[in-house]
């Protein structure tokens, strides 16, 4: 909690002002530098190839919207794929997280500790360990080159943090809340739907934003298990598109990057609080 108490000492004012000006300048410099790649991306995406080769730093004389046209024509299908697949995966993750969080947070049953450890242990095991077997297993399960090969492993790993966060949020509730409901004759399923779920809402929205970004950004796994270009996710498709442009159409290449960034940018604009909470949620629990 920050409290605004006025400093009573005089003479500090000038010094304080100078300090604030200096840190403002430093912050602006750092911010500008970290925005350089984004600026490069956006500006270049509007330039023609000739402009790019002539003067890299110049602003585009005329906005080359054809770059976007070009990129969108190739990538719109993949973008749609990604939005669909990520939406399905996020919804399923939320279901698993809400249910699991409720079970571990509000219910009592033999073996609870062990079962929770089974979930928790997964957080400590790096994905690279089971990358190889899973690559073969999805072929064995006959879901290779289908969206299920993405969704199922995603939600399987993605549920864990969600369950832990939901459990924590439920455990923070007064303990007799569910007891009372039980005495009133409320079964576990009704408890879940009418009491736990509404209370889990805030943490679920954080989990949703967090997992959405995680799934959206995944690159290696889609590249491995999805072969058909028309089923491919945007991250991989952009790379393929980018490589196909070579040095011929750099503007369109960057327009592709912008297109791939836009959904997350929009998400961030609308949910920046949850986005930031999600970012730190993983760290805080550790």
């Amino acid at each position, binding site marked *: 909690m920050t409290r605004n108490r006025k400093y009573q000492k005089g003479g500090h004012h000038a010094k304080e002002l100078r*300090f604030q000006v200096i840190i403002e300048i430093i*912050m602006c410099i*750092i*911010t500008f530098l*970290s*925005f*350089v*790649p984004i600026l*490069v*991306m956006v500006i*270049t995406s509007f330039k023609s190839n000739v402009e790019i*080769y002539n003067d*890299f*730093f110049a602003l585009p004389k005329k906005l080359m919207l054809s770059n976007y046209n070009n990129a969108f024509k190739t990538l719109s299908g993949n973008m749609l794929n990604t939005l669909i697949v990520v939406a399905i995966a996020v919804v399923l993750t939320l279901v*698993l997280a809400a*249910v699991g969080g409720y*079970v571990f947070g509000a219910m*009592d*049953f*033999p*073996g609870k500790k062990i*079962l929770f450890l*089974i979930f928790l242990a*997964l957080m400590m*095991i*790096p*994905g*690279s*360990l*089971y*990358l*190889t*077997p*899973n*690559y073969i*297993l999805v072929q064995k399960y006959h879901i290779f080159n289908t969206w299920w090969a993405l969704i*199922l*492993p995603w*939600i*399987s790993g993605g*549920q864990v943090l969600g*369950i832990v966060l939901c459990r924590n949020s439920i455990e923070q509730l007064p303990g007799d809340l569910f007891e009372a409901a039980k005495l009133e004759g409320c079964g*576990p*399923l009704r408890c879940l739907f009418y009491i736990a779920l509404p209370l889990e809402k805030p943490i679920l929205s954080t989990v949703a934003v967090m997992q959405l970004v995680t799934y959206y*950004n995944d*690159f*290696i796994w889609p590249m491995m298990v999805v072969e058909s270009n028309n089923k491919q996710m945007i*991250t991989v498709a*952009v790379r393929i598109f*980018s490589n196909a442009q070579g040095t011929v159409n750099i503007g369109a290449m960057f327009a592709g*990057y912008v297109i791939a*960034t836009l959904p*997350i940018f929009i998400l*961030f604009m609308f949910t920046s609080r949850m986005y930031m909470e999600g*970012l*730190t949620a*993983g*760290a*805080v629990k*550790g």
Partner: protein
Amino acid sequence: MNKWKNRKLLFLILAIALCIVFAVLFLYTRSRTEAVEDMGISTGAMNNALAYDAENDVSLVGTNSDNMIYAYKDGEQLWADQAKGAFSQIVLAENKGLVVAGNQDGNVYIYNLEDGTLVQTIPVQRRVVSVDVNDSEDEIAVSTLTGTSKANLYVYDFNGETLTSIDSKVKISGVSFSGDETFVAGNNRGEIIQYDLEGNELGSVSTNYSVIQLFRNGNEIVAVCKDGSYYFLDENLKIVRKGKTDNTLQAVPESVGTDQNGNYVAVGTQEGYIFVLDKKDEPVYTVQEDQSIASFSADGSSILYTGNGDFVKKINTDGISDITRNRKISKVSFILMILSMIAAGILLLFLIPGVPGKLAKLGKEMWKARMAYILLIPGLLLMWFFNYRGIFTAFVRAFTNWSTENNTLAEIQFIGLDNFKKMFTEGYFLTGMSNLLLLLVTGAVKVLTVPLICAWLCYSASGNKRKYVHRFLFVLPIVVPGVISAMIWLKIYDPNIGLINELLTKIGLSNLTRVWLGDADTAIWAVIFMGFPFVNAMAFLVYYGGLLGIGKDVEESAVVDGANRWNIFWKIQIPLLRPQFRVMLTLTLIGTMQNFNEIYILTQGGPGKATYVPALELYFNVSQFGRYGYACALGVILFIMTMAITLLNLKLTKSKDV
């Protein structure tokens, strides 16, 4: 009370009985899940051609590696002969008791079936690909290949007189009689052409892919094409039946066979698969051998086959369609057997005095909380199939030769620590580890400096609105997906149009420009420099949150004591942020070990192996080299390193709490 006990005993007996029933069912059906039977014939060499005489029960096998032809009866060798080349096809003239064998040394040898005396040698003087004998057993059709595409067709009588000779510019893969006076040949343009003895073309059929093999079964000609489709033609070249193997494995067809009645078709592939299809062209059975399947023959309802290895086997097509069913039953009965065994075990426990009470209590509790288990089932199942199963596999297979070549349980062999030794001899791993070390050190420095400075600056800024704006702007660049960011940096490093070289040229330092990612000396540093100025949004937020948590009170009391900002930062804030540092350090180190997205996009480990890291090596071994066992071993090493850091962090956290 006694009644209850009796009932328990009854249930126990029932459970044991069920267990036995399912065990018997399991063993019975499992023994009927194999249609393949070994013929017990061993040539000690690589086989290539096969013929079977049902009347005398003689199998003829031609080999590839030592140019032998063998005749077997009841698994005993009857006779053998050696030629100068590999035997390509063997056919029988049953009524005459003769064996006609085409050989790649340019001859057709005719043997006596019973004692193996060489009756006649027909010098064709070209590599013989395929032979056939007509039904009246007075003519032999031969197809040959010279070089790679010049083919000839000949018809001889049994004295070696040439009756017909045809030149072809297209590679012919098989020849067969379609009547006493006509014969057909399949070529790699996908045509099956019919000729008469004068060499006139009578007609042809077009398939879409090259004909791989062609043979005659009674009055029908069976051909298989490169895409796995097969055709049955009558003597007038009319297609009487056609179908296609379901080729999801993308195996390359090599040979084709049927049983004598032509009910089942077997398509053999280079990869050693045999796909058996029934009359409705539905796949009913699949066999997998280690070597390419070269030749088929028929014995009544059985299909005999051999391939480029030392085996001759028989597929019994009687009841072959039951096999899939039997496999299912055996699986189900196995599960039921285990379940009834468990039930019997539990019932047995109940009969021990004292246990029932405790067990009943536990059971009661579990039953009461059954909804909890039911709700957890989906999540647990997913984790089993997509995480834990893989984890167990990885640990076990890290010690095996698992690879694309050794992909069946039979082929996967335990090889001890060979995979781990390989890491130190191949060199990629060692380079990768030294790169990784560099990335870990620089990663640690990056995550402990810039985000902290940013958090402190933002925290020190006056005015909530200003704080908010700067916090927002520091975090905003995270919206660019990691791989997109890497692709932008790839362009920033571009030697021709890249920002860095352009900038250097502009400020007159063009002598410093270079191919940043293509130069082994600078590549790894370019990878490290990517993401400059390293405002890690997560670390920034964690530190910022930490600073807020310390609170103004502490600061103010320090100010009263005469401390300035500098002192407060070093003496109060940094020590109090230690938990945040530890968390970020742990996450960064683990993340750095696992992540290879950026390196994959920037350099793919190159130039040479200059920017390899173990995780990238793992990925390449899975997706490109197919060396799964080795990749698993790398995964295990990465797991151990991750675990070490996690445990260290855990221990530090614990000791702090005490």
